[in-house]
């Protein structure tokens, strides 16, 4: 085995649900302190792939390594901040109670919890709505709270499934600024999206189509390789080529 310097590694991962194969031979090698964007139409297998990486699901064949540990492994779960596509929040509870509940699942001390809750809620601009029941939140507010919960235990790996859906451009910028800041502090981040302009903001871009990783590289490399001016053109280029 070669010396492993990557943070997230996916090797020949296939995933089938019954007879239906949704991921075909995925290989990823993501170094530390990087933002990887996974771009692809809905139903292309983005969510399945990140569930494999997050250890919620296992590949039918192939391997996933996180920080040199083979997934799935329960102790690795605390190293991941996961934000699902659906806002997995308890509507009857207040934002603070939601945060405190998830924080206690990571064994964060009471004092630290208080400090972290303040920090993440500041970040997503929800500090004034801390005591509000989540069912009174708007869609965008729920999205932001989900992000705050994913960040609560300061994980070295962040996995965000469409984090900016329903968030206004101003706040989207704040969130991306924050993602850059955590990346510079050493966090490795995977973001799925189907918004093209967000893709330009990442270090590395993976394009997924019908369960296959059709391209991987920095946004500029991909544009150059396909001699396109925009990511959209590049995506269409690969899409056409695969047919």
């Amino acid at each position, binding site marked *: 085995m070669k010396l492993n310097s990557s943070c997230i590694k996916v090797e020949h991962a296939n995933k089938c649900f019954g007879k239906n194969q949704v991921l075909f031979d995925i290989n990823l090698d993501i170094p530390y302190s990087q933002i990887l964007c996974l771009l692809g139409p809905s139903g292309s297998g983005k969510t399945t792939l990140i569930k494999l990486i997050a250890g*919620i699901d296992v590949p039918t064949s192939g391997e996933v390594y996180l920080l040199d540990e083979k997934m799935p492994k329960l*102790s690795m779960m605390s190293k991941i901040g996961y934000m699902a596509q659906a*806002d997995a929040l308890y509507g009857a509870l207040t934002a603070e109670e939601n945060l405190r509940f998830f924080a206690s699942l990571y064994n964060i001390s009471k004092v630290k919890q208080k400090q972290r809750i303040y920090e993440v809620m500041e970040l997503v601009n929800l500090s004034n709505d801390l005591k509000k029941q989540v069912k009174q939140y708007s869609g965008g507010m729920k999205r932001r709270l989900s992000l705050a919960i994913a960040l609560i235990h300061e994980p070295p790996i962040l996995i965000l499934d469409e984090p900016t859906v329903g968030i206004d451009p101003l706040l989207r910028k704040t969130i991306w600024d924050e993602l850059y800041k955590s990346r510079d502090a050493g966090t490795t981040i995977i973001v799925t999206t189907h918004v093209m302009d967000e893709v330009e903001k990442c270090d590395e871009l993976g394009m997924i189509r019908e369960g296959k990783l059709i391209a991987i590289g920095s946004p500029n490399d991909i544009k150059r390789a396909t001699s396109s001016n925009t990511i959209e053109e590049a995506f269409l280029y690969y899409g056409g080529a695969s047919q």
Partner: protein
Amino acid sequence: MKMRAVMMRILLQLKHDKRTMVLMIFAPILVLTMMSFIFNGSDYHPKIGIINAPMSFVNKLEDSDAKVIRYDENTSYEALKRSKIDAMINFKSGIPQIELEGSDPAKNNAVLVLVQKAMQQTTQIVPEITYLYGYENMSSFDNFGPILIGFFVFFFVFLISAFSFLGELTSGTLERLLSTPLHRWEIIMGYILGFGVFTIIQSALIAWYSIHVLKIMMVGSFGFVLLITILTALIALSLGTLISIFADNELQVIQFIQIILVPQVFFSGLFDLSTMAPWLQAIGRFMPLWYIADALRNIMIRGKGWSDIAMNVLILTIICVFLVIANILTLKKYRKI
């Protein structure tokens, strides 16, 4: 401790959801109260139309609290047809001819018993009657009250646990929980403890209300009743979460109730099954509600002690442990580790 965090979260959710909490406690109490009104009613006094009968016979009927109305042949037939009376009696050459309204077997029976009693010779020896269990004029509510307590605890706890766990599945919070370092057993045990605390209070209240307010016959120990109802709640709780793992939506949960709960009611002893084929009766032995009802009846009506319910307690405990393990294993469907 993470299990405690799950438990506290559930209690917190219940605290915020006051309507659910109030419904969970008052719905069974309301239904039990209504059933006690229905089944505690005094004996039925049949209404009998008389066309022609000896005076002594009519007096005897009236002595046994029957409502006797005199008719001639035409009007009595009309009254019978309109169900104003339950039977008409006409003596023809000393032999009573009885025509019954006939649509309600219980009323038919009441009339026949009464007539037979009135025909009997007064000089008969009256037997001395004693009761080993129960008492004279014991109402049918006393008889199946214990089963109802067991059933309602089972039913309402099953409902709340099935729906709330299903909510966890459909809202994605379960997947979110499974992305944290929580063990599967910590989720299930946290659930059972969280709802357990609440359902224990609920079932104790139901038992207390039935015994002290509705005055269901109770000669045994309240502690044993509590023990059985708590076991009932725990079984219903773990069965509810187990079912919701297999159900995709609320409608399917309701359909599972028909398969899982309704047959248990039939075999619980609410209806007398002793005339059924023995192998059919044996089906009841595979249903938790049978053991619950059997134990509660033994405690409440027959005043039996630990040695008579120990077997039921053991079997119920085994069922409970089995269901909890089944829950932890089936949760693998959502996360392999």
